[in-house]
C-alpha cells in the first residue's frame, strides 16, 4: 500500500512533498542564516537530548532506508558499529554521485549543504565518531565551494569542532574531493580511495562497520540518507512514516531527465509513479511517447511504457524486476535507439571497471566490441546470445556491483527490445536518426507551428 494509490487528488501540491528542497528557491539558500530560518539545526538539538543508543533506535524506527541505491536501513547500519571497542569510529558520506542518470545529491549540496552537515553531526553523535568525511566527486567545483563555505560557517557557529552546543561532543569534518573514478561510489572502493589508494573494492567480510577506514569501524552513508535525518528528528518519526509505504517510508528526491517536457528534481513520498510525475509535469516532449526508462540509473534494469504505474519504492520496483536505485528517472522517447543507448552505457562500464575482477574487466571489454559491431550493422544473430552469455558471466561474479550494473542494461534491453537488436543485424545498420533525439530536434516544428 502506498500513498500513491491512496491519494485521489492528482494535483502536484498533494503528490509532492518538498522537504530537503523546500527552500531551494530562496535567495542564498545554501547559507547558515537561511537554513536556520527554516528551523535548521533544530533536529540536532533534539538528537543531543537523547542518548546515542536511543537515537539509533529512533532512526531505525523511522524506517529511513539508504538513498544511494541499495536501500539498506540507515539506523541498522549505525547499529552495526561496535561500541566500547576502544577504536576510533568514522562516518564517511558518499558524495561521489556518478551513476549515469543520477543527479540529486549535487543539486542538494549546491542549494542546501547544511542539511547534510546537520545530519553528519547527528549521525556522529549516534555512532560515537569524532571525525567525519565528505567524499565529494571532484568534477563538481561549484558544489565543493559551497561545502567549504558551509563547513566553515558550521565551525564558526559551534555546530562542528569542540563541545558542540555544550553537549561534550567533539567533531572534525573533512571535505575531500575525489579525482574522477565512478568506482569510488562503491563504498569499499571509496574507503581505499580515501586512504590514498587506487579505488578498488575490498572483499567482504569484514564489512566497513567492523573494518572500514583505517581498519576502524566505519559507517558509509549516501548524502541524501544523512541529509534526511535532521527532518526526521525535527518533525518526528510518525510524520516520516506517514509518507510512503510500510517498508519504504518517507520522502525522497526523484530526478526526471531526458525527453520529458519538464526535467528536474521532484521531491515526493516514496511510491509515486512515473505516470503521476509525468502527468503533473507536462509528460514527454510534445508529439512523442515514452519508449524506455531507468528507475534508478543505468545500473538498474530498464523499464518500458508498461511500467508507468509501478510504485517507485524499494518493493514496488523490485517486484517489477528492477531496482529503485538512485531514483534517476531517465526517460527516452521513440526516437532513441536502444542499441545505441546500451552501447554507450556499456562503454562507460568498460571505461570505469577498475580492473580488479576478471569477469568485469574482460567481460565489459568484449561486450563493447560486440555492441559496437551490432550497432554498426556488422553483427550476427548469434552475437545476441553471446551478449547474454557474457553478461551472465559478469553478473554476480565480481567483488562489487559495478559488474552487476553492467549486466543490467544488457539483460533488460534484450528482454524488451530484442527485435530492435535483430533489426540492426538484418538491416545492416541502425534504423534511427540520432538528430531526431536531440533536445533541439523539434525546434523548427515548434517555431513553425
Amino acid at each position, binding site marked *: 500500500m502506498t500513498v500513491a494509490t491512496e491519494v485521489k487528488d492528482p494535483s502536484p*501540491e498533494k503528490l509532492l512533498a518538498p522537504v530537503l528542497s523546500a527552500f531551494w528557491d530562496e*535567495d542564498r*539558500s545554501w547559507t547558515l542564516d537561511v537554513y536556520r530560518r527554516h528551523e535548521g539545526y533544530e533536529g540536532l538539538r533534539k538528537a543531543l537530548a537523547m542518548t546515542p543508543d536511543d537515537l539509533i533506535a529512533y532512526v531505525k524506527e523511522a524506517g529511513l532506508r539508504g538513498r544511494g541505491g541499495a536501500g539498506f536501513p540507515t539506523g541498522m547500519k549505525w547499529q552495526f558499529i561496535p561500541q566500547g571497542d576502544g577504536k576510533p569510529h568514522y562516518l564517511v558520506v558518499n558524495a561521489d554521485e556518478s551513476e549515469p542518470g543520477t*543527479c540529486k545529491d549535487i543539486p542538494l549540496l549546491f542549494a542546501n549543504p547544511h542539511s547534510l552537515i546537520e545530519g553528519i553531526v547527528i549521525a556522529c553523535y549516534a555512532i560515537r565518531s569524532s571525525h567525519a568525511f565528505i567524499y565529494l566527486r571532484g*568534477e563538481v*567545483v561549484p558544489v565543493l565551494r559551497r561545502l567549504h563555505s558551509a563547513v566553515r560557517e558550521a565551525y564558526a557557529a559551534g555546530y562542528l569542532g569542540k563541545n558542540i552546543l555544550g553537549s561534550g561532543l567533539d567533531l572534525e569534518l573533512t571535505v575531500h574531493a575525489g579525482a574522477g573514478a565512478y568506482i569510488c561510489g562503491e563504498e569499499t572502493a571509496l574507503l581505499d580511495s580515501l586512504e590514498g589508494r587506487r579505488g578498488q573494492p575490498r572483499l567482504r567480510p569484514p564489512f566497513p562497520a567492523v573494518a572500514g577506514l583505517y581498519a576502524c569501524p566505519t559507517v558509509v552513508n549516501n548524502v541524501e540518507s544523512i541529509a534526511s535525518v535532521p527532518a526526521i528528528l525535527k518533525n518526528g518519526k510518525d510524520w516520516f512514516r506517514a509518507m510512503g509505504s510500510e517498508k519504504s517510508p518517507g520522502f525522497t528526491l526523484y530526478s526526471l531527465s531526458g525527453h520529458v517536457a519538464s*526535467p*528536474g528534481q521532484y521531491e515526493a513520498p516514496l511510491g509515486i509513479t512515473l505516470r503521476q510525475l509525468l502527468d503533473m509535469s507536462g509528460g514527454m516532449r510534445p508529439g512523442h511517447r515514452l519508449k524506455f526508462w531507468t528507475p534508478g540509473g543505468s545500473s538498474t534494469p530498464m523499464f518500458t511504457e508498461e511500467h508507468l504505474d509501478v510504485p517507485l519504492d524499494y518493493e514496488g520496483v523490485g517486484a517489477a524486476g528492477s531496482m529503485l536505485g538512485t531514483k534517476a528517472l531517465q526517460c527516452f522517447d521513440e526516437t532513441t535507439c536502444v542499441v545505441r543507448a546500451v552501447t554507450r552505457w556499456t562503454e562507460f562500464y568498460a571505461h570505469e571497471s577498475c580492473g580488479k575482477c576478471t569477469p568485469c574487466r574482460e567481460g565489459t571489454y568484449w561486450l563493447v566490441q560486440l555492441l559496437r559491431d551490432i550497432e554498426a550493422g556488422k553483427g550476427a544473430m548469434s552475437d545476441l546470445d553471446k551478449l547474454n552469455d557474457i553478461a551472465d558471466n559478469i553478473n554476480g561474479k565480481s567483488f562489487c556491483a559495478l559488474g552487476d550494473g553492467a549486466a543490467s542494461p544488457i539483460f533488460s534491453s534484450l528482454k524488451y527490445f530484442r527485435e530492435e537488436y535483430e533489426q540492426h543485424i538484418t538491416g545492416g545498420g541502425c534504423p534511427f536518426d540520432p538528430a531526431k533525439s536531440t533536445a533541439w530536434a523539434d525546434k523548427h516544428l515548434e517555431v513553425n507551428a
Partner: protein
Amino acid sequence: MTTTPDSVGLGMPQLPAPDYPDDVRARLERDAREIIARYPGSRSALLPLLHLVQSEEGHVTRTGMQFCADVLGLTTAEVTAVATFYTMYRRRPSGDYQVGVCTNTLCAVMGGDAIFEALQDHLGVGNGGTTDDGKVTLEHIECNAACDFAPVVMVNWEFFDNQTVESAKRLVDDLRTGVPVAPTRGAPLCTFKETARILAGFPDEREGAVEASGSAGPASLTGLRLAKGEAARVVHPRDGGPHDAAQDRAPGDATPHDPSLAEHLSSHDAPQDTSASDPANPAGPTAEEGE
C-alpha cells in the same frame, strides 16, 4: 594540435625527476603540511596532494609525483599507481580551460554527441587535444550528475547547462578570445591550475565566488514550483536556462521558444499514436530514418 604521443623509453632507465626550485618546494611543503593535518592517516592526503601539484604545473609531472612521494614517505611507484588511476589527473601539458562534453548516454542522445563532434571540427582537435594557442583542451566526459540539464558541458568543472551546438561553439570561441563567460551553475571561470587548488582543499577566496549563479538551477526547482502551486511560473529549462540569459544572443538567432502552459503542462503524457517516427505506425519507422 600540441599533443604528442607518450614517448616510449628504450634501453636507458629514466633519470630521476628534477626537483622543484627551492622557493616553490618550500611553498608546496607548507600547503602539504596543511593538507596532511586534515587526516588521521597521512596517506589519505595523496589525492589532494596530486591536485596540489597539478595546480602548480597544470598537469601531474614526475617532479610532482616525486614531491608527493617525499612528503608522504611513499615510493614513486605507489604514487604513480594512484595518479594514473584517476581521470582528473592530467599526464601531459594541456590548456587553460578544460572543456568536457558529456557523452554518456543521456547527454549523448540529447545532443552531446553532436556538440562533441561539432567542437572537434570547430577547434580542429580530437579527444584530449589542445588548441594551438594553449587555451582549450577538449575532451568527452562521463555523466556529471546534471542529467536534468542535458546536454551538459563542463569548463574547468563548472556547469554549462542546456547547451546546443551553437552555444558550445560560442563558448569555446569566447574562451579563446578572452571574453568572460559565466557558467549557468558555478563561479566565473578561473584557470585550470586555480581550479586544481580548490580541489586540493583550499577554498576559493574570490569575492562572490560562492554566491555566483544563485541558489539553484531552474531544473532543480521544477518540482518545488509545482508543489507550491507555482506551475504557471515553471519555465521549460531548455528554453529559458540562465545560460541563454547570461550570454548575449547574436543578432539573427532564433527567438527562444516560449511554450504555452498547455503545451508543457498538459494533464496527460499524451502518447501520440500517429507520430511519424512511431515504430508502431503502419508506415514503419519511416524510410528517411533509415537513411
